[in-house]
């Protein structure tokens, strides 16, 4: 039998084991399986040696073009992540452990999760956080379901402009929960039918909102206010919790590592204290030793550690009455997020957010001066801005592609008047200034030729 590096048993091992079992062959262990379907023909390629595997996937990776200047954002932002983040989370003690069911030998994961919860509470201005969910959109959908549970209302309102994929995901969860989803243009459109209003900060088109407007309107209608916030922007912007939010979600992936074609992601999920026992997902709590090891600290006080807490909410205990079916989450991404945010620290989060803001505004200012180009005015914004060019967005994208540049997102199919004919460009703190220069240069050439 060919030896596979991930399977230690040899023919000799198997012979010893089979003898002990009194079974003639490994295949005999599968005799309960219906004979007519056993050992089907499975059409997948033959095994590859590691060197060939790596070569193959290097070729595939090279078929992706990732070194061109690109100005896409819309929920996936190139962010500065310090080198210690991947260094630390790639330690196999973090990477190859399971959900921390045995706290005595899982303090690493547990304490890191407690750090994460603390960081998320500080960033969002909320009281409590879980250990993280799949991504911002699914966390937002779960937040809507929480609102539905606590308000016993069967509709939710999403305030436009909001990421269309968030709408899509909320609708998918709502299909499961038999909940109606309304998109609204104004926070004041929220009614007593709505369990909540969901507000994106900055909104889908980049504008910084005054969350208080939305939370005020929601609370007036007896609904909860859910804010989907960009965590880097929270280095600069008022914490949603200070502006009346009841639940805050957000996307943590981009502070944890590269955009990675969109995943794995990390859904932040924080809430005001009263919702603690209604939260989906895992929660880590502080605990004390009940049995300190004899040798460890004779006579000393029990030591502090961390455990999975409030598990009575969860599927493996409460089953169909659980707050969610959530099981495996995004633990490693949450640890990476925490390390980045803590490495930046209070100064670094502010500086990184401001650098993002300044680089984006500088790019917008330079583009606005190009003949034929306009940047749509619409109040304060963070990292995304709307550009109208002397040609339709599709033509602009093609002209930029000819110059080796990936344009921003064509948003001209949206309902908002400001999106009409517009392309949404994104510039972040992690983009190369040379790429911005290349964009401005390319646009000026394109403008001159049109």
């Amino acid at each position: 039998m060919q030896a596979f590096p991930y399977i230690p048993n040899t023919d000799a091992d198997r012979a010893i084991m089979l003898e002990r079992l009194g079974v003639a062959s490994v295949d005999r262990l599968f005799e309960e399986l219906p004979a007519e379907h056993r050992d089907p023909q499975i059409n997948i390629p033959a095994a590859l040696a590691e060197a060939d595997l790596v070569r193959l996937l290097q070729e595939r990776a090279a078929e992706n073009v990732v070194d061109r200047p690109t100005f896409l954002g819309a929920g996936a932002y190139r962010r500065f992540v310090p080198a210690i983040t991947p260094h630390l989370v790639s330690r196999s003690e973090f990477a190859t452990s399971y959900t921390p069911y045995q706290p005595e030998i899982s303090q690493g994961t547990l304490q890191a999760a407690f750090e994460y919860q603390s960081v998320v509470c500080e960033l969002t201005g909320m009281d409590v956080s879980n250990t993280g969910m799949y991504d911002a959109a699914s966390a937002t959908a779960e937040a809507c379901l929480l609102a539905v549970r606590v308000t016993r209302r069967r509709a939710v309102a999403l305030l436009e402009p909001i990421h269309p994929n968030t709408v899509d995901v909320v609708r998918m969860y709502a299909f499961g929960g038999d909940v109606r989803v309304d998109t609204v243009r104004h926070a004041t459109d929220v009614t007593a039918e709505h369990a909540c209003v969901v507000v994106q900060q900055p909104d889908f088109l980049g504008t910084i909102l005054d969350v208080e407007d939305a939370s005020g309107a929601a609370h007036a209608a007896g609904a909860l206010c859910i804010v989907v916030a960009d965590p880097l922007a929270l280095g600069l912007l008022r914490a949603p919790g200070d502006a009346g939010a009841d639940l805050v979600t957000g996307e943590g992936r981009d502070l944890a590592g590269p955009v990675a074609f969109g995943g794995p992601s990390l859904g932040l999920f924080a809430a005001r204290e009263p919702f603690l026992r209604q939260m989906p997902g895992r929660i880590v709590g502080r605990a004390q030793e009940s049995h300190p090891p004899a040798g460890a600290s004779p006579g000393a006080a029990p030591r502090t550690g961390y455990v999975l807490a409030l598990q009575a909410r969860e599927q493996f205990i409460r089953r169909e009455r659980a707050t969610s079916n959530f099981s495996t989450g995004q633990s490693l991404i949450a640890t990476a997020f925490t390390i980045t945010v803590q490495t930046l620290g209070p100064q670094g989060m502010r500086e990184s957010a401001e650098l993002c803001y300044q680089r984006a505004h500088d790019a917008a200012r330079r583009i606005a001066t190009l003949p034929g180009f306009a940047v749509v005015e619409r109040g304060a914004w963070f990292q995304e801005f709307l550009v109208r060019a002397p040609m339709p967005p599709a033509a602009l994208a093609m002209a930029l592609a000819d110059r080796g540049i990936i344009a921003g997102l064509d948003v001209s199919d949206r309902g908002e008047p400001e999106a009409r004919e517009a392309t949404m460009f994104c510039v972040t703190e992690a983009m190369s200034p040379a790429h911005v220069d290349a964009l401005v240069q390319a646009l000026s050439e394109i403008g001159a030729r049109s």
Partner: protein
Amino acid sequence: MIEDVGARLSFDRGAPGRRGVGVPRWDGEPAALPDAHLLRESVRLPEMSQNEIVRYYGALSRRNYSVDSGTYPLGSCTMKYNPKVDDLIASLPGFAEAHPLAPAEDVQGVLRVLFELQSHLGEITGLPAVALSPAAGAHGELAGMLIVKRALERRGELAQRRRVLVPDSAHGTNPATAAMAGFTVQELPSGPDGGVDLATLEAALGDDVAAFMVTLPNTLGLWERNIQRVVERVHAAGAFVYGDGANLNAIVGRMRFGDLGFDVVHLNPHKTFGTPHGGGGPGAGPVCARAELAPYLPAPVVVQEDGRYALVRPADTIGRMQQFHGSIGVLLRAYAYIRTLGCEGLRETSGNAVLNANYLRALMRDHYDLPYDRPVMHEVVFAGTRQRRRHNVRTYDIAKRLIDYGLHPPTVYFPLIVEEALMIEPTEAESRESIEMLAGAFIAIAEESERDPELLHDAPQTSPIGRMDEAEASRHPVIRWRPREA
């Protein structure tokens, strides 16, 4: 004398003014910041130098047991070896730096891998309609049950079929998912052999049943001997058969859900395909369905035409599972894993996983009770009933004592239908010697429980921290750092 790491969070470390990393200064013309009422003062975060952070998180890591430190026979978790080359592949810049909204022509490489993965999973399950976007097993279950719901809706039977049948041995995510999908859940007691009882099933079936959810092999590590008849009956009643494929490791390469007549299954690549579990994720939860259900798959799926790959939205999709396309980093690893083993290696995987579990069962069977005394598949469930009855030692104590043997405990008190359950899944990644070592530790502990039960009650003694007061942590939850004065 060595620091009590747990007592000092990062927030209690460092000092005001320390920096973990420098940030480039903006030296261009500064734009005015937004109005002050939109801004905050600053975020309350630790201030540590880089050395402090590296040491702190390094110290945390050393307080974790992991697959790379030793045998991790957690039942229902398939804690196998996680190939390092797969990590390397997922971190290639061509994959890691690809933007999810990039034009398709710029991401042909990753789309091709995802397309091929869809097709490989379709082959492996015998269910050709595959979507990769769910983020974990439970998420895949939700996708799968919503596919069922959409299919019922399109058949005009949704109002009528609201009941979902779930065996009492099922993983907790199954009933929880059925509930999230808007169904009412009916639990079916398992038969005396640990499998689905045909009579019970038939009694429960009816024209208000939407689906039957079944885990194969089941959570007792047992093959469902009646599976073909089960599928027939469910289909005859007009309901769907949903397969929880998280235990695929038992049968991969040897049996396909599709060939058995299943309608939808989800898989757990972070179990079967060796992607690292990360202390609780990220995972992925591909969903595989019969071809007729393809229009309902969650968006997006990858299609190929004339050698070009593209993301598309299935015609009558249930919607998106997440903002973008799924846990790409996990899926790339799963693809690499499948390509490394090929069909032959996958068969060897299930073969050795099952052999290891049965060998362990044989070595331990005289020392622990076996509630279901049948040959097992990938895992074996013992009961600590003898130890509890005779020596007042609980499964919990046995588990904690294993830690002192340098091992990770198995899953305990699950499945719920086994008293004092010890659910042990060794996986194919353990060698014969390590199975023997594991059995040896269990047997030694069984002897200790007779001779010196206190040893077990006081365990673990060699772990970074002793037994924790878990109940108190939920009674008075402290779930975040607060400044000392507060």
